[in-house]
């Protein structure tokens, strides 16, 4: 086993924060994705234009740049807001919030495309049938569309979640003490960069493997009622 010089508890604390960051960003991004995919499929020209602009920008700009822009941009905006209200101290957006917001915005752009595909895979007749049975639009969405969209979207969402999990490391750049930052701190003390970055790599690999197992279980659960062709 590799000797971590007593830093294993620190690395585990960083791992926990990494997992929290990934889950919070994925939750935010899923909501953004659902809302924007609805806009993309809507009749409103303005709505479609906005959703297209959003996905073009957030899929074409580096995630690192988004993280930096949200963190420094929000800090400047908050500070000038507080100055306008008579405050003195500069206000800094907490790196966890900035990271969640930045990664959630990026996740949302990819999730929008995933959900759009999933909604389009839904047979139209089913929604029409539900409406004909007297369900309201919302009830038809909740009972008929959403459970199936979830099933169609899961593989795509799983892929972007695995990307997100690795992108959480970017938030170390704005000082959040997640796994990557904790590792760099340990490197500063021990002067053993290879050992510690390798340990971090192994932890990311384990998180990836566990996520893949979890996503597989979710997919099996979502597909439980689907009949497969006889082999």
């Amino acid at each position, binding site marked *: 086993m590799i000797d971590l010089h007593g830093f294993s508890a620190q690395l585990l604390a960083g791992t926990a924060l990494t997992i929290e960051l990934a889950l919070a960003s994925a939750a935010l991004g899923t909501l953004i994705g659902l809302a924007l995919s609805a806009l993309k499929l809507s009749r409103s020209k303005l709505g479609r234009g906005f959703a297209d602009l959003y996905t073009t920008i957030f899929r074409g700009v580096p995630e690192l740049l988004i993280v930096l822009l949200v963190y420094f941009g929000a800090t400047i905006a908050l500070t000038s807001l507080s100055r306008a209200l008579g405050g003195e101290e500069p206000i800094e957006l907490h790196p966890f919030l900035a990271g969640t917001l930045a990664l959630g915005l990026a996740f949302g752009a990819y999730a929008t495309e995933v959900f759009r595909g999933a909604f389009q895979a839904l047979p139209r007749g089913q929604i029409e049938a539900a409406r004909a049975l007297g369900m309201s639009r919302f009830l038809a969405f909740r009972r008929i569309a959403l459970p199936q969209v979830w099933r169609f979207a899961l593989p795509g969402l799983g892929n972007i979640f695995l990307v997100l999990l690795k992108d959480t490391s970017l938030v170390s750049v704005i000082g959040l003490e997640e796994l990557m930052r904790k590792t760099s701190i340990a490197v500063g003390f021990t002067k053993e*960069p290879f050992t510690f970055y390798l340990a971090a790599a192994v932890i*990311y690999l384990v998180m990836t493997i566990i996520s893949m197992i979890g996503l597989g279980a979710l997919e099996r659960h979502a597909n439980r009622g689907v009949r497969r062709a006889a082999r």
Partner: protein
Amino acid sequence: MSGNVIAESIPKLLDGAALTVELVAIALAIGIVLAVPLALARVSGRLWLNGPVYGYVFFFRGTPLLVQIFLIYYGLSQFETVREGPLWPILREPYWCAIIAFTLNTAAYTAEIIRGGIQGVPHGEIEAARALGMSRLLVLRRIILPRAFRLALPAYGNEIIILLKASALASTITLLDLTGVARTIIARTYMPIELFAMAGAIYLVITFMITRAIKALEHRLSPHTRPPRPA
């Protein structure tokens, strides 16, 4: 005054963009050369070939690129044999470390993309070529690889854009790529919103050009799917 800063930073940002494109182009060129034999090893059906390549691909796809960059740039200096070895003049340069990390990373992703392409080549075409008396090598060169590249092109286009965005991480090891230049100017002027927005716009322009180039290449390489020209 702020207008002045913006006007002065444009040529610097473009210099940074040139370095970004240079890093990405070199990594892509070497990466694809490495990826072809790796992909062939993956489909070889021989465990001693497939196994190690699978391990390599799994490591580089399952860990953050930031960890890979730090492992190479900071990590390797932990070993005296490296520090006193003949490769040290290369391995201590952030420029070469970034290129090595990007290359190994993109080779892993590209190998899987090409593997998908190879497996997508219809069996009948390979059997037909064999039946015509082509040797295995000739079938590979004339039938399998050209078809696989065409099939893999859309996915490879995505990989180019992902690598372009990921190359922003070069700025974390002091390189003055597009993101690095923006961060340096911000450290002096403290105008993060303006500069990150400008850098983001330049990334978007490069992304757009790559997308267009790939689309044009796809069109050129698939004359058989186009309707015949009117006589």
